[in-house]
């Protein structure tokens, strides 16, 4: 269970002023749920994930990850984070990049784990390539593989499929769903793609623009495992439309605020 109570965060700017980025987020997420987060660009989604990951410390309010602070959970290696950029090590091959978490922990790994992960992300042929030899989408798949391979309790994904084409994205969504169902991890998934957001979610959270607040939440109750056919059914479409409308209002709100200033 992850609980976020009255979370606020401000970033100190260079001129000494503080800029409020998150302003009172309150939610709790049961273990094993998939929460997708959408919201206008620059709204504070990445910042929220960084707080959950224990990478930002100066927040107000309380964050609890299965009974531990984010920093504790991070140090115990229970959190997998796919950053908005792939962040690959250029001197390591694809395989070596995926192996990094094991190497760091000094754990020996079952030989098939990496192979399995390479297969899922369709990178088998590129195992011995270096990152500069890969396309952007391939690089982001390596980053995903690296985060999934240790089977963390909490998965934070920051627009992981932004660089993929429609159908590779669909395939990766299905694979992600499968892995997530197998591991029982709790998942926070940030995306700008609404279809993806609704397809994966148990719950869609729409954030307002900066300073971020929860604008609206949607429960998504379609049975799992979900298949691509789901996207063609009318219930899915009507939910998608409602989410879309909500995001539009959340963004408009921002535009009005800007005008007032």
């Amino acid at each position, binding site marked *: 269970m992850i609980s976020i109570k009255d979370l606020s965060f401000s970033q100190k700017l260079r001129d000494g002023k503080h800029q409020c980025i998150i302003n009172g987020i309150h939610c709790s997420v049961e273990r094993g749920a998939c929460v997708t987060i959408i919201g206008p660009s620059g709204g504070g989604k990445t910042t929220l994930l960084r707080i959950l*990951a224990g*990478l930002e410390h100066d927040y107000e309010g309380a964050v609890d990850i299965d009974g531990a602070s984010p920093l504790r959970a991070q140090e115990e290696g229970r959190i997998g984070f796919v950053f908005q950029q792939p962040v690959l090590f250029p001197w390591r091959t694809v395989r070596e990049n995926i192996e990094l*978490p094991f190497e760091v922990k000094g754990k020996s790994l079952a030989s098939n784990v990496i192979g399995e992960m390479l297969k899922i992300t369709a990178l088998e042929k590129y195992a011995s390539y270096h990152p500069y030899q890969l396309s952007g989408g391939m690089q982001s798949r390596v980053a995903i593989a690296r985060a999934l391979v240790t089977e963390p309790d909490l998965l934070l994904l920051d627009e992981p499929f932004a660089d993929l084409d429609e159908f590779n994205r669909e395939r990766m969504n299905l694979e992600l769903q499968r892995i997530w169902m197998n591991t029982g991890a709790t998942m926070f998934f940030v995306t700008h793609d609404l279809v993806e957001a609704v397809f994966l979610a148990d719950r869609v959270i729409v954030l307002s623009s900066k300073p971020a607040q929860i604008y609206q939440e949607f429960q998504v109750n379609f049975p799992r495992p979900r298949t691509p056919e789901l996207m063609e059914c009318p219930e899915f479409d009507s939910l998608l439309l409602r989410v879309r409308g909500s995001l539009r209002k959340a963004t408009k709100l921002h535009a009005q605020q800007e005008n007032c200033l």
Partner: protein
Amino acid sequence: MNNSQIDNLLPAVLRLLSTHATDFIVPGVVLACWEIAVRLFNIPRYLLPPPTEIFNLIIAQFPLLFHEAGITLLEAILGFALGCGAAFFTGSFFGVWRLVERAAMPMFVALQAVPLVAIAPLLIIWLGNGLGSKVVMAALICFFPMTINCATGIKNTSPEMVDLMKMVGATPFQLYWKARLPSALPAIFSGLKISASFSVIGAIVSELAGADKGIGYQILSSSYRTDTPMLFAAVFFAAASGIGFYQFVCFIERATFRKMGLTHRE
């Protein structure tokens, strides 16, 4: 060398000359002008000897000059190893701990601007005119630029990479060894390249301040004898030593980057 080897060698040399022909145009023209000017204006050879004479002297005195250059190069390499080795530790220290860096870096940047070669005579007084003073001079002159390069490289590791290492639960040493050090390698190698040429300069300056062997000693003693052709020949060997050492470090750099699977982009 038998005839057939010479037959093979000649085309190879010709090919080399033809591919690098443009490289020789400017030095060739300069040397030709020099030769002509010296002969045309009857410049006394103790002022400016013609290149052909210097060339003949280099051939004639090759064993001696080669030996002396070897001594200088040994001093430079030992100093290089000592200075860069020490700088690697201080630089890593500075790069990892912000506080240490903020306290000590300004002093280092200031010290880098001090012409350290000025203390060469002092080192001779302290350490005698043997190997020691030369090695220490070369080490000192390498130390500051290398420290600054190493510290900058380590410090400038991308913050995303540092965050990633935290997420996978890396210890501070693993963070240094697996992320910071490899990303600092380009900066470290540019420090090593600067140091390679600096170390040869340091060794020669120290020899000029007091020595009984080495290429600097040859430069000094031929100037006392007003043996200008010999002085030119010695300077030629000094230059060749510096360039050779620098190129060697470049070679190591390329080999390292190739081995790490990084294409070497300049």
